[in-house]
């Protein structure tokens, strides 16, 4: 399988501050990777290095086989920054046209129309950016990032200004993007969103990768809780298949069973557990 994005032992230092410390990860073609971590963990720095906006102090970063920051690498990337601002005097379609020209896209008006429709702005192509809400601008940003059919889409907090309906719309867009075979790196604080759409999750804390896996693996079942007249008993090493036996043993021991629950943490539980110290 082709690798869309890879980092090998990447270190980034700003003076005495280490933003990234020996980060090695890989995003496969068509994979949707969620990057999680507290503020200042190094997520944005990592994607900025990938986009060629920031230089790594050491280590190597490749985008679709080309060194990050090279022309070839940047030709394959679509990027929406966490803190972005489009020229307020441009119309939505004009902004996309500008990026088409810079990206060398031959899509023309058809591509602009299709992307604006994809992000739900099909009927406001002639509206100026300064007449758009923050949410609309964020969706326009996603359309901008998709100009030229990138092989890797990097979205840094793409739903931070969106209401629940807008977030759902972004999820739909990401599913569509995934169907097109585009790899995605999604930086987000919205864990439920990441859990819903991402194939794999990487949690970064203090510039290091502290957890990695599919949302299902990270949030795997961890024990069984059985509620009796004496209170709740926890069997931390038990799994779902052992429940009938545990219940039978408790009943045989004269206990009354009021409820049984498999303990399955959410991604949020895992996240808090992993980076809890930073969150506090």
């Amino acid at each position, binding site marked *: 399988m082709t690798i869309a994005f890879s980092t090998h032992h990447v270190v980034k230092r700003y003076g005495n501050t280490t933003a990234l410390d020996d980060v090695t990860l890989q995003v496969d073609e068509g994979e949707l990777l969620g990057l999680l971590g507290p503020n200042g963990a190094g997520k944005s720095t990592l994607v*900025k290095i990938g*986009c*060629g*906006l*920031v*230089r790594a102090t050491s280590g190597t970063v490749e985008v679709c086989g080309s060194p990050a920051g090279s*022309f*070839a690498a*940047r*030709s394959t*990337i679509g*990027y*929406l*920054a966490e*803190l*972005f*601002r*489009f*020229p307020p*005097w*441009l119309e939505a379609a004009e902004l996309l046209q*500008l*990026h088409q*020209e*810079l*990206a*060398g896209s031959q899509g023309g008006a058809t591509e602009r129309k299709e992307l604006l429709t994809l992000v739900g702005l099909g009927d406001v192509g002639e509206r100026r950016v300064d007449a758009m809400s923050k949410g609309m601008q964020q969706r326009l*940003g996603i359309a*901008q990032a998709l100009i030229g059919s990138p092989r890797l889409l990097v979205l840094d907090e793409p739903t931070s200004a969106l209401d629940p309906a807008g977030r759902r719309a972004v999820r739909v867009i990401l599913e569509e993007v995934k169907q097109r075979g585009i790899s995605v790196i999604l930086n987000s604080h919205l864990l439920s969103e990441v859990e819903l759409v991402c194939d794999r999750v990487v949690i970064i804390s203090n510039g290091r990768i502290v957890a990695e896996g599919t949302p299902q693996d990270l949030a795997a079942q961890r024990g069984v809780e059985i509620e009796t007249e004496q209170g709740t008993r926890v069997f931390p090493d038990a799994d779902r298949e052992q429940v009938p036996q545990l219940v039978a043993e408790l009943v045989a021991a004269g206990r009354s069973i009021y409820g049984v629950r498999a303990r399955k943490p959410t991604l949020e539980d895992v996240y808090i557990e992993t980076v809890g110290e930073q969150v506090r």
Partner: protein
Amino acid sequence: MKAVWTIARHTIRECVRRRVFLVTPVATIGFLGLYAIGNHFAFSHIGGGTTTGFAGSLVDQRALAGSTLVGLGMFMTLFLASSLGIFLTFSTIRGDAEQGVLQPLVVRPVARWGVVVGRFVGASVICAAYAAFLYLGTVLITWVIGSWAPSPLLLPGIAMTAAVEVVIALSLLGSTMLTALPNGIAMFMLYGAGLLGGLLGQLGKVLSSPSLETTGRITSWALPYEALYQAGLNYLTAGATGLTRVVVRLGPLGGATSGGPLLGLWAVIYVVGVGLGCIALFGRRDL
């Protein structure tokens, strides 16, 4: 190169679209209106044309008034066009990066030098057109009202337009080191310092003070927009002869020096050098 033109066109469109630049036509109309009123009263006061100076020699009052008025017009033209150039470029790198305007553009397969050159070209085209419009406007007003025009006609305007290009290059360089507001302030202070240095040099000439003249000369080489502006003024009075020339050169704008034959070459080297510095600093900057 295509990206350079795209960025240049983007800059030009920004100037046309942004509401903040609506002040430019308003200021232009105000300036040209005031300039026309000044011309009207000046030439009405002069009436005929010549007066007799000492030893029976003649002073062409129209040439005296015309060159002084067009010289004042050039001063304002340089100020307005430089201001426009500074406002178009003062936030190009750090300012736009802090606002998040720059990153979406730089992520595209565009060389960073292309962004710098595109910005420079776009701002240069606008400011050159604006400076040419103002210069020719002032010359036309003086010619219509006072029947006087500088000779050579175009060289003063060309020198002044070149001066504006130098200001734009410096503003771009400043934008790689300073955020928008500090860079804007620094640029206007630098602009004023350059003009002050030039005036000190002129004063040194009148007072025969080598120290002041050296100060003016160093300023002219360090900030060649000032030398180009002076060269433009010098061209303005080049056509005056006899006592008229003597009187004109005693006036507030008459002490300007030509800058010498190497000034144009130095200005080109200077702008290229400033541009390369800008590209080098921008190329290393994390965004």
